């Protein structure tokens, strides 16, 4: 198991390195350059000065090598568009993305799990049919469209929730009281619901199928035959064995959440990393784009690794198989 874990870790680091390299090259060869984003009338002397100052005049491989050396020293570089260290920019935005993605993930998994279990217990009956079609409908909705509709209805028309931003700028510019924690949650409702609902619809469909897969297994029938209460059969015997699909879904949720966050953060003015990355791409802020790609790929890769580990924890057969593989490799 340990050798398997080490092997996966090395592979994960290699993937992250490849992603960063790919993004670094891609953003540099994309048309447009940072200086041109300042202003079309920017003085050429000014532009040359800034280009030299940020090292954009150097050949690509030199810039790449410098970037890697700086990265190895924990230095992400300076953001051309924000006039500040990339590290500071990331430190200011990552907590917001974590809050949004965390809340959305919670909604996605809990609501999806609950719906999947509920539907599997009423398969082909009216509630299952209604929920099946509803989840399919929600799952097929474009996230940005759903965001705009929720914004229009619940923020502009009904005014139940704020239009955007993470807090009330007057009462709670910083979260320093219980009231401001509540204010943050209130501001989180619409963006997290938008992101979480679509995910929950997908999770529900996965979970329903997984529950039905195990519904006719011998151990489930045996439990029922022994007279165990239905609630116990479902939660202990059926759900426990259907959790593998749920864990797979957990691993797959990370890329979805991060890509979805770019749109959601832009629409709801949520000051997270997705919005930061989006602006960085538009302004050709090379160091910032590469840094956000590094963080995003790390989260996705390690999220999947975590899912794999959880699979091993949940299913002893996978642990044995992983151990056997190690023996084969090391033999």
């Amino acid at each position, binding site marked *: 198991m340990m050798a398997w874990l080490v092997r996966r870790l090395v592979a994960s680091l290699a993937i992250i390195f490849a992603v960063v390299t790919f993004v670094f090259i891609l953003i540099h060869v994309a048309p447009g350059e940072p200086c041109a984003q300042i202003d079309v009338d920017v003085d050429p002397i000014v532009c040359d000065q800034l280009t030299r100052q940020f090292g954009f005049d150097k050949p690509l491989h030199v810039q790449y090598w410098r970037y890697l050396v700086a990265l190895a020293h924990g230095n992400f570089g*300076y953001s051309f568009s924000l006039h500040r260290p990339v590290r500071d920019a990331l430190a*200011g935005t990552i907590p917001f993305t974590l809050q949004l993605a965390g809340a959305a993930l919670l909604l996605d998994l809990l609501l999806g799990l609950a719906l999947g279990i509920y539907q599997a217990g009423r398969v082909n009956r009216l509630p299952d049919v209604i929920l099946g079609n509803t989840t399919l409908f929600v799952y097929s909705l474009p996230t940005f469209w759903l965001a705009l509709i929720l914004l229009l209805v619940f*923020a502009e028309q009904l005014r139940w929730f704020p239009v955007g*931003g993470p807090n009330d700028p007057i009462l709670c*510019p910083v979260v320093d009281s219980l009231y401001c924690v509540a204010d943050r949650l209130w501001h989180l409702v619409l963006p997290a619901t938008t992101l979480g609902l679509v995910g929950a619809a997908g999770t529900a469909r996965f979970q329903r199928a997984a529950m039905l897969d195990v519904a006719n297994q011998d151990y489930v029938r045996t439990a029922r035959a022994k007279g165990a209460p239905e*609630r116990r059969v479902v939660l202990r015997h059926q759900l426990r064995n259907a959790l593998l699909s749920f864990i797979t879904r957990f691993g797959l949720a990370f890329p979805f959440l991060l890509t979805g966050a770019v749109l959601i953060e832009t629409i709801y003015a949520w000051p997270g990393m997705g919005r930061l990355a989006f*602006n960085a791409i538009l*302004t050709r802020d090379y160091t910032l784009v590469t840094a956000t790609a590094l963080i995003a790929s790390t989260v996705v890769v390690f999220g999947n690794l975590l899912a794999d580990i959880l699979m091993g924890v949940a299913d002893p057969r996978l642990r044995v198989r992983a151990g056997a593989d190690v023996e084969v490799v090391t033999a």
Partner: protein
Amino acid sequence: MLSAMSRRSPFIICGILAVATLAGCERRGGCTGSFCGTLINAAIGEPPTLLPPSTEVVVANDIGEQLFLKLADVGMSENTIGDEDFQPLLAQHWEWDGPLTLVFHIDPRARWQDGQRVSAADVEFTFDAYKDSVVASPFRAKLRRIASVTQRDSLTAVFRFRERYPEMFYDAVFHMRILPAHLLRSIPRDQWRTAPFGREPVGDGPYRFVRWQAAQAIELVADSTFFLGRPGIRRLIWRFTPTLPVAVTQVIAGEADVREQLVTPENVERARAAPHLNVITYRGNVYTYLGFNLRANGDTSQPHPIFADRDVRRALSMGVDRALLVKSALGELGKVPPGPMSELLWIWDPNIRQLPYDTAQAGRILNARGWRDHDGDGLRDKNGQPLTFRILVPTTSVLRVQYAQLLQAQFRKIGVQVEIDAVEGAVVTQRTSSGNFDTVILSRGNDPSPGSGITQTWMRGGFGRSNVGRYYSPEFERLVDRAIAEPSRDRARALWRSAIETINADAPGIFLYALANVAAVHTRFDNTQIRPDSWAALLRTWRIPPDKLIDRDRVER
């Protein structure tokens, strides 16, 4: 475990709902009287820094108006000639000491917010910083005709110019916000762009900096001791929003108080329908045009096969019904510009001679230039080459993309085929600066001086920069140079008129629309003066009468 969780879940949900309900309620605060009040501006985009020489981002300028004073500023007339229409700020008064020397006397009451007196040394330091290529200020080129700035005594700054011209005073005061030398002198200038001062500035203006929360908001508070009078609104907040629709929605939903530009007729309608908003129209500072590339696409050394021909350009211009386009796309929000200018400029004159909309005449000119429909396919061609070109337009501007489609339909009527290249803004900039395009729809912002924008975009000095189509007319340049040098405003206006009529006749572009600015402002604000070149310039004079204060105006923190 799971069953325990499920038993507790209703309580958890109720708890969250209770907390959310609590958050939904506003707390009553205690401030009363004339100097309470909070203004929240729904701003699009965030400034990279608040250090004035390092950025010309509009939001940074709006906030800079509150933090750092100029020596003097343009008046509501936006007249940039001479000095009679300028309003004193840091300079209490000024006088001319000969034709090339301008002497400013600093108001002795002016103080930096750390208590230090504002001095002539600050003015000298500021000029030196703006001119320093290491600081890389975007305003550097605009100060090229000022030879030096020195201090005669602690409150007297002396500007010496290289030459005499009507906008000497404007150049001396408009581009520079005076900086605190005692706080910035020790910072190496190559580090100014990233200096902490830019994110936590100490100014001398009517407001003090309070906090900057990245990607969220910047908050300022009124300086009750401000030497030109206590500002009427106690707190200003710029709340950053990435998109215009969300910014407008925030104002309509009452979460923000001001959106200074609504931009589209739909947004204006939404704002007009909101009873708590005043809609204020003021002169816009942007015009939009379809620019022809006079050099070959991708090769600036060769003439363009279509647009190098002046007559063809004129014919294409005559084939576009600009008034109809403005009416259908912008309604009352736009005007057909009489040349390459926004309505902000004092030379704006609808009576300037322009090419008429005349498709019959356009057709005759194209026929005369050999562009006929030889093969009967409805498209003109010449020597086997169809009359076809591409319009480059940024995807970020819905309005410009819409205009590209409308132009496509209009050109089709005179037998010209147009394809649209809608690409990202950075790509538009890259392609226009390298000359890799046929035509492009661009918007240009003007500062109040006609001499600055027009010379940059339509004269030889702008080649490779904002004169993307490489238009060059010796006659136009001669007239512009004379207009800029003319001290009499009436004679200058006549010269500008001749110059604009010359460029209109040459048709290096089709001047499509000049957008009026429309602001939405909460009705509780009084004295909402807006100076067209900078909506926030007079913000310190805005007020909220005590009987119109709402809860968030009274909040003490």
